[in-house]
């Protein structure tokens, strides 16, 4: 590592933090445009810093003795719980964190830039940039967390920035409801995360990632005894932590908040709900991967199956939705499912660990193309003022740049070479194939579905029948198209990054070749999906209706997202509100408080009942007097003489 110091990297999260403070306190004084420029510039600066860090790390100082080191670039004690449990605030640099730095700053920078155009003239423009800065700060802090508690802290912070941004249009009830839902669902998952942290830190005696995840260390082997329901303590710990990850990454059944989160402005969806925050769960699992692998393989299975199921489930839903952002949201779910699955099926070291590499790889490429898709959809919405596919069509003429970049993104996600999605998805399929055939076939099928629903979207929007537009759609301004182009280029070329050389389970690079035996069929099913979509949606036909009629129940269930929302609604509205909260409130007012008031009432009652003694008759007084004297005398003579 030499005498090079990465300590400057602490400024990568801190710069957006100060931007946030500045915009938050003084935002309403500044001109909106200036606020936007300040925010964007700050992100630009850290974008460059991240790239520089990545370069320094991967190619200059990061590798020592053929192994990528975990470098603590900065660390300071923030809070001490016990003698051993301290929360530090610091920066860890290792392959995945550096990769994430690049992802986050890239997408964030692009989104900032895009937002200057997209949000132009909106009420609360400066507020929007303040929130974006806050989010960037939180996400970067999460990424560089040196310990699990720091991660939890920033985990919560990204949660709240997500809440704030989803609810950006706070006067719109649906946005408010969606933001609330997002926060509460993830909060619920975080409860699992928190308890998981408590268990993990208790058995390992530290929060520190490096200590916990050291495969040769003592910490990782703690808590292997069976504890509860046949699983070890460590398994429980990491499973609970995974619940946190699943909440943030919207894994089934905690996915319900993500589609609703599309109520937020589109750049937000691109940044938070596609590229960065939602993959935090993946990042978390990747971060703790050694623990999962060595101490809790059962948990890893769970992750794999949850990932696999979610990807299928979401893909099926995506096929029937009409709101383009929701389609993308479900697509995001599906893709994150892929990543989770990849981690779940991964082994350790070299080729065994290809799943780990592939998960991260897909995370990287997905961030680029999904951000692109969202920003593209933003451009579409900007032009059409609608989210609904059936109110669009034939837009390729009006939005040439958007059209082109969108097409690239669709091809990428469909896994068509040479676009980046092909490479990363292929690696995942390889890993799945070697690990679990069932999951492989599920993912294989999902790959086809993905191609289908993406191109259904593509064809419906850009081709198909042109509806009547109130005013002619026009291409977005340069601030919006530049990010599109940049991300399109990224989608095309990032596939060629040799990830196996950079991000591996044990930090040791290895070489991998494309396994054409798996790659070709996957290209094949991708193409099949595209063709299917083309047949059904390129021109106006009645095929979709026929399909829907034939698969009536599946269609209806899929369209209604398998009624999961209704189940949640039932649980919250009926059970929690009606059957817990209201009775509690009632109980408190009437039983507990009633008891207190009852005591007072009883005192008054007694007071009323005994008033007869004070009859006003002096002879009755005398009678009480004499009786009292005699009674006292008798009682005490009796007591005294015994």
């Amino acid at each position, binding site marked *: 590592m030499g005498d090079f110091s990465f300590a400057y990297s602490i400024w990568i999260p801190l710069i957006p933090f100060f931007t946030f403070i500045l915009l938050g306190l003084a935002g309403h004084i500044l001109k909106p445009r200036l606020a936007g420029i300040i925010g964007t510039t700050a992100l630009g600066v850290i974008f460059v810093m991240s790239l520089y860090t990545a370069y320094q790390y991967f190619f200059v100082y990061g590798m020592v003795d053929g192994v990528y080191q975990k470098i603590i670039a900065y660390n300071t004690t923030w809070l001490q719980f016990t003698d051993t449990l301290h929360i530090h605030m610091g920066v860890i640099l290792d392959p995945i964190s550096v990769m994430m730095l690049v992802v986050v700053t890239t997408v964030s920078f692009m989104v900032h830039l895009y937002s200057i155009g997209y949000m132009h003239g909106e009420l609360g423009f400066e507020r929007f940039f303040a929130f974006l800065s806050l989010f960037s700060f939180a996400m970067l802090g999460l990424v560089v967390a040196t310990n699990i508690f720091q991660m939890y802290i920033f985990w919560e912070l990204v949660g709240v920035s997500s809440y704030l941004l989803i609810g950006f249009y706070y006067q719109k009830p649906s946005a408010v409801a969606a933001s609330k839902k997002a926060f509460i669902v993830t909060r619920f998952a975080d409860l699992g995360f928190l308890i998981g942290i408590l268990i993990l830190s208790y058995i390992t005696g530290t929060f520190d990632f490096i200590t916990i995840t050291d495969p040769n260390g003592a910490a990782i082997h703690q808590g292997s005894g069976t504890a509860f329901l046949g699983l070890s303590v460590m398994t429980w710990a990491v499973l609970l932590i995974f619940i946190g990850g699943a909440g943030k990454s919207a894994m089934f059944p905690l996915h319900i908040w993500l589609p609703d989160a599309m109520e937020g402005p589109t750049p937000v969806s691109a940044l938070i709900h596609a590229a960065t925050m939602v993959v935090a769960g993946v990042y978390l699992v990747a971060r703790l991967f050694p623990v999962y692998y060595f101490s809790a393989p059962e948990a890893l299975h769970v992750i794999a199956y949850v990932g696999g199921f979610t990807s299928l489930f979401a893909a099926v839903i995506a096929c029937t939705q009409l709101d383009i952002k929701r389609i993308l949201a479900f697509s995001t779910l599906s893709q994150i499912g892929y990543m989770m699955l990849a981690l779940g099926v991964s082994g350790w070291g070299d080729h065994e660990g290809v799943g780990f590499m592939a998960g991260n790889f897909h995370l990287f490429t997905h961030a680029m193309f999904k951000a692109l898709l969202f920003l593209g959809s933003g451009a579409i919405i900007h032009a059409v003022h609608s989210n609904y596919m059936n109110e669009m069509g034939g837009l390729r003429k009006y939005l040439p740049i958007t059209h082109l970049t969108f097409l690239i993104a669709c091809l990428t996600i469909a896994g068509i070479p040479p676009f980046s999605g092909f490479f990363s998805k292929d690696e995942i399929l390889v890993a799945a194939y070697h690990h679990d055939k069932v999951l492989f076939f599920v993912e294989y099928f999902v790959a086809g579905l993905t191609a289908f629903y993406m191109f259904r979207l593509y064809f419906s929007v850009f081709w198909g029948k042109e509806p009547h537009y109130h005013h002619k759609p026009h291409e977005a301004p340069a601030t919006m198209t530049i990010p599109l182009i940049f991300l399109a280029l990224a989608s095309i070329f990032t596939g060629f990054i040799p990830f196996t050389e950079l991000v591996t389970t044990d930090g040791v690079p290895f070489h991998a070749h494309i396994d054409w035996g798996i790659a070709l069929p996957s290209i094949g099913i991708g193409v099949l999906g595209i063709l299917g979509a083309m047949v059904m949606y390129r021109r106006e036909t009645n095929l979709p209706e026929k399909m829907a009629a034939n698969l009536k129940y599946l269609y209806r269930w899929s369209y209604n997202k398998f009624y999961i929302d209704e189940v949640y609604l039932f649980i919250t509205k009926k059970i929690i509100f009606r059957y817990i909260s209201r009775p509690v409130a009632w109980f408190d007012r009437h039983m507990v408080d009633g008891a207190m008031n009852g005591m007072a009432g009883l005192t008054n009652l007694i007071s009323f009942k005994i008033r007869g003694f004070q009859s006003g008759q002096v002879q009755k007084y005398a009678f009480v007097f004499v009786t009292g004297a005699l009674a006292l005398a008798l009682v*005490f003579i009796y007591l005294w003489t015994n």
Partner: protein
Amino acid sequence: MRIEDFLLMRHEILLTLVTVILLVLEIFLHDDRKQVIRHWAIVLMTLVTVAGFLSLPEGTLFGGMYQTSQLHQLMKNILNIGALVVFIQGAKWLNLEANRNKVSEFYLLILCTLIGMNFMVSSGDFLMFYLGLELATIPIAAMAAFDKLSNKSSEAGIKLILSSALSSGIMLYGISMVYGTTGSIYFEQVSQLYAGSSLQVLAFIFFFTGMAFKISMVPFHLWTADVYEGAPVNVTSYLSVVSKGAALFIFSIILVTAFRFISPLWQNVIWVISVLTMTIGNLFAIRQNNLKRFLAFSSISQAGFILLGVIAGTQLGMATVVYYVLVYIFSNLGAFGVVAAVSNATGGKENMDDYVGFYRTNPKLALTMMLAMFSLAGIPPVAGFFGKFFLFLAVAEQGYYWLLTIAVLNTIISLYYYLLIVKAMFLTKSEDAIGRFRSDNYTRLGLAICIAGMVIVGFASPIFDYIKSLSFGL
């Protein structure tokens, strides 16, 4: 017996002197100038009170019938202070048209009872005690019936005199048995011979009821409310503090002298009685509307609390009793002073409902009343807090934790009704509140003394230390 020995009786002699002077004035002054007696009485009483604090030797007189020590003198001084405040507070009332021709009667009767109380406190045997007691009681009956034109006043008088006659009869019956079983009426000798045969227990209980009547312990309290309500305010205030205080003083002295060796008996008896007294007093007080009647029940429950110090029977116990009586005098006279001022200014408004919105019109009086209520309830920073706390300490020192618990729970009920008055004065809004009025200087002086007492007696620790150093116990 030398003539100087009579100096030991300085309190009584001075009071008698004042009585004589006032009598002479009453005889020689022209009817139009009778009002001057008020000033005379107050000035003379002040002199007597101050003179009481001059140091004096301890000793006994009349072969032990009369005894005096610094503690006795202190008790008498406390009573004098109480009486002085009553004198001052009564000045305005006596200036009213209806009472103009009865000015000296009020002061003379009070002075007589005060002499009786002083003798009672200093008594060394049951005879002197009985004499003092009757001297302190019979004139009060006359005072209760002071207001000749009022039904209630004469009703109060008859109730008091009949009840007290009965109670003194029963008490005398007890004393006669004490005499019969021990052959002595001197406290010191009685205590030696009092072992606790059944007859002696009976004798004690009968004696006890007599005291219980004076202190208005439950169930011997029933006269209290009616008499307090019926009697004129100033008489009630005197009755509730000075008369009760004197009885408490001698009661605790007799218990630790004459009945020293049957302390477990009387401790148990008073345990029961004090619980009853606190609780029943509180329960009745909750529902009262007439302030005098309300204060009557409040004073009953206060007596229950004071009994805690008596039960302890220790030096600390007696000190806390004396201290609390001192505090109680200021607090209760503060309350009665306000009631009297309002009653005089409004022509007899004495109900709690009349006090609604009182703070808006007469803030100073309302604040005084509030302080008095807080002091009675035992809320800092006023002296009542210290008084109650020390009483509780005294009883807990002897390990009566359950009694203590019952007592503290009772303070909550009492707090409730004291706050009712505060509520009426401060919280509730009213259109027809008592109008703004100016009090005369005597009323102000009286209330100022009470406020000063409530504040100073608590914080000035030397007072308690002094009392403690003089006290004695079992």
